[in-house]
């Protein structure tokens, strides 16, 4: 990848509170995820095309942009919903394999879970690189690094036991279902 001339130092700006909203189609079980900036998460039922979507849960979270404090470049992350650390639930999952390899090097892997129009996507490499740079630059432990990778490294999002870092069901020992 071609490096910029600026050795960027990224800081969070434009922090916005909101909710990560999950909806399910009760016909085909298709799931859509989006971010709502409303004070209360929308719990509408609605039809869209062949789908009948119901509210399936929400969680408080934040959105942010990153600004380089040197060159003032701003990068937005509107499609990023959250980060997830691998739960090591499947030995054959690529995210699990990568996490275990990296841990031995004091590199901690987080999957970037992103959605466009409700459907899961991978962030472009440049965005992942910027997130990696930002979170690593905040560390103080010598030799420690953060690596942000695509969510598609998960073998199967449907059965993945990893959980996005967000504020839901945290006061219970039983995960919210």
């Amino acid at each position, binding site marked *: 990848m071609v490096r910029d001339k600026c050795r960027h130092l990224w800081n969070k700006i434009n922090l916005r509170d909101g909710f990560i909203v999950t909806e399910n189609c009760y016909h085909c079980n298709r799931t859509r995820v989006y971010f709502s900036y409303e004070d209360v998460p929308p719990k509408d039922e609605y039809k869209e095309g062949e789908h009948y979507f119901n509210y399936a849960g929400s969680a408080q979270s934040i959105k942010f942009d990153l600004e380089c404090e040197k060159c003032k470049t701003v990068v937005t992350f509107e499609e990023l919903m959250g980060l997830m650390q691998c739960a090591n639930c499947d030995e054959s999952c690529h995210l699990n394999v990568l996490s275990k390899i990296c*841990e031995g090097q004091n590199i901690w892997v987080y999957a970037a879970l992103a959605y466009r129009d409700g459907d899961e996507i991978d962030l472009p490499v440049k965005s992942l690189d910027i997130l990696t740079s930002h979170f690593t630059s905040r560390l103080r432990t010598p030799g420690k690094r953060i690596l942000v990778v695509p969510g598609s490294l998960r073998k199967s999002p449907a059965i993945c036991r990893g959980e996005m870092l*967000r504020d839901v069901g*945290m006061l219970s020992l039983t995960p919210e279902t």
Partner: protein
Amino acid sequence: MTVKELQSKLDLNALNEVSDTEVEGAFVSDMLSDVMAGAKAGNVWVTVQTHKNIVAAANLVDVPAIIVVRGKKVPEDTVQVADRVGVTLFSTDLDTFQVAVKLHEAGIKPDA
């Protein structure tokens, strides 16, 4: 002051191995999004949360220790994740305010 020294000063119950990492400041919140946005490397985090994701959030921002307050029971999977990433978990029967006061009395200052 190190995490180990902090344990002694506040009489905290350690749930896993206590690190020698230097503590710089404290962060009080029960929301992961707050911590990911606002906690600084070296902060000790005071929270009532016990889900294993508190460890993932702490590790992301280089928080070396988490103090779980009000005697909340920390599940074993949270302790296991903390062991794996090297974050020290403490528990105390004190509430958040009491812990914050004790941290201040122990010399932990607010971030500038």
